[in-house]
């Protein structure tokens, strides 16, 4: 009688309640996974932050190199170097006689300031209104 009470009658559709050890194991697994999630998240954040720092360092390095190259170009274009190269390599010197001529062509435009030294142009806003602006316009006809 007692055995018949413990086991559900076949075909009645009743489920057997799980044994306590199974419940405990499942609960432990759930807790473990729950505890693991922040760890995975933290690890992922650490990796991403590390990548960001590495990229920032790379960006700073590239900027430093770019500026160094800009100044190197400026030094290569310095008047004293040009004169030295002209005299030493091309054997050039000041003219002994100056002849002036007129030419039937407009003078070249004055040298423009290199763009990197000019102020950045302000960003132009998009001509088409944003969704938010559309909603505000619809609400306030």
């Amino acid at each position: 009688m007692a055995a018949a009470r413990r086991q559900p009658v076949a075909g009645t559709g009743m489920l057997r309640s799980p044994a306590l050890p199974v419940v405990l194991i499942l609960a432990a697994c759930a807790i473990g996974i729950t505890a693991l999630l922040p760890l995975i998240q933290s690890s992922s954040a650490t990796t991403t932050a590390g990548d960001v720092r590495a990229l920032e360092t790379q960006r700073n390095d590239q900027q430093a190199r770019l500026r160094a190259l800009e100044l190197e170009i400026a030094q290569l274009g310095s008047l004293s170097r040009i004169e030295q190269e002209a005299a030493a390599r091309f054997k050039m010197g000041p003219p002994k006689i100056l002849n002036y001529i007129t030419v039937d062509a407009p003078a070249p435009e004055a040298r423009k300031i290199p763009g990197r030294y000019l102020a950045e142009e302000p960003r132009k806003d998009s001509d088409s209104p944003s969704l938010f602006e559309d909603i505000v316009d619809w609400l306030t006809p």
Partner: protein
Amino acid sequence: MRGQKRSTTWRVWTVVVAIVAVAGVLIARLGQLQILDHREYAAEARLSHVSEDTLSGRRGALLDRNGYPLAGSQDSFDLMVETKAWSDAKNAAEAAAALSPIAGVPPEQMVASVSGSSIYEVPVTRGLSYDQAQAIRKLGLPGVRLMASSRRVYPEGNLGAQLLGFVGQDNSGLTGLESDLNDVLGGAKGTLTYERDGLGNQLAVGERQEVAAQPGANVVLTIDRYLQRLAETELDKTIDKTKATGGSVIMIQPKTGEVLAMASRPTADVTKPDLSDDSKLALFRNKAITDTYEPGSVFKLVTMACALDLGLVGPYTPWHDLGVFRADNWTIRNWDYSANGDQSVTQILSKSLNTGAAWLATLAGPEQFYAYVDRFGFGKSTGSGLGGEVTGQVRTPASDPGSWRSVDMATNSFGQGLSATPLQVLMSAAAIANDGVMMKPKIVKEIAYPGHIQTMAPEAAGQVIKPETARNLREMMGVVVDGISPTLLDVQGYKVGGKTGTANLTVDGGGYKPDAYISSFLGIAPLDDPVLAVLVKIDEPQGTPWGTVVAAPAFEHIVEAALPYLNIPPTETALVSEQR
């Protein structure tokens, strides 16, 4: 039995009280540490794992009028060492030995700079390059870190040294335009706060707060690097040729007041500033605006302008030169002690007659004469905005009623007894070249802020003489040049005007230095429509001191090279061929 129980209870209570007392002490101590002294300990703990760096915005560049950089900034790194990390002598010596070949600093010097310091972190060397910084990073030494900084670089070398100035270790301008424009060039500093590990490296996921530094603005000057170099080269050549002690050359555009070149000698080296003593420091002074001198005969232009503008004389008004002029029992003579007889007013200028200048000033009278001296900007700032500019001195009946005498005006009329800066003298000629309109000297053309550009418009100081007076004076200046030997002054293809000057050198405390002169030439070119006003001033030339001999040839060389460079076509027969 009852007595034993009572004894046990007493002992238990003793232990309990002792435990409670100890716990109380611990709680009190914890309260002190965590509540009362919280801030102090929190700050100490924060210092051990949180760093706060000051971020400097990239210092703006100084550019010439065509955009060529005269001064720029290069990223560099400062090597910082924690004092605690090098507290152990053996570890410090090993770390310093590893750093030394890369940083280029002797290890003993590095160890000494850290061990002698009481602050948390010490910079052992500054201005390391990117490659040096990378090599040091790879060493991974504990307590050693690199702080981003920048280094000032002068692509044109020492060009315009006194005008540009230099910056200190903290990247703040100390002299010249670097100092005058420091707020504009320097930008705004920012801060970076971050948690770091035991090696001093930034933690990937730690506290991090950054207030970004704002970069400085780029400043476009009115200086032209080619003309500046031309001015310096000719100045050096003239000083070398005449064995002079120094001098100045300034070039400006009369119509705008834009300074194209400003050079003085002796000068200092901005690329490697030597500040070891006051005499070295004095070399950084921009003498074109900070030092005054008696302008001498070039000042006769002002006297002549006064007399012509008041309508007292015309260019061909006759005058008889007796060779002497008396004022207050003093006798004034010409520079060559000559008596020239019948002369025109133009000849007073072309022959540079002191007696004639004194006569013209007397015709005008002190009130009018000094009014014109004031109009031409003597005795007051030119408004250039350059730091350290002085005003010079002019004694007038109003400013010094007790001791001023008529002879003072007589000597002032030919540029003695008053002092002016080279820039003031040049601006007077620029006003004549610009139809009587005096412009304020301008050194900054544009400032490119991150977002907008501020353009500096030319600013007029005022109409100092009538346009027709200015035209007459220009013609007279042309006559002056015509009278100079072509071997000394002959500008091929262009007609120019000018005035020579030879003045005694004053000494501190009054009086003149024997046999010491300042020779100068003040000129404009081309004469019919001047685009250049140039002053060449040479201090204490050896041998013949006359401005015609010493300074005029330098003016010729400068103008001959500068006018074609500025696309000014020649006006005379130098035009040898024409293509159609």
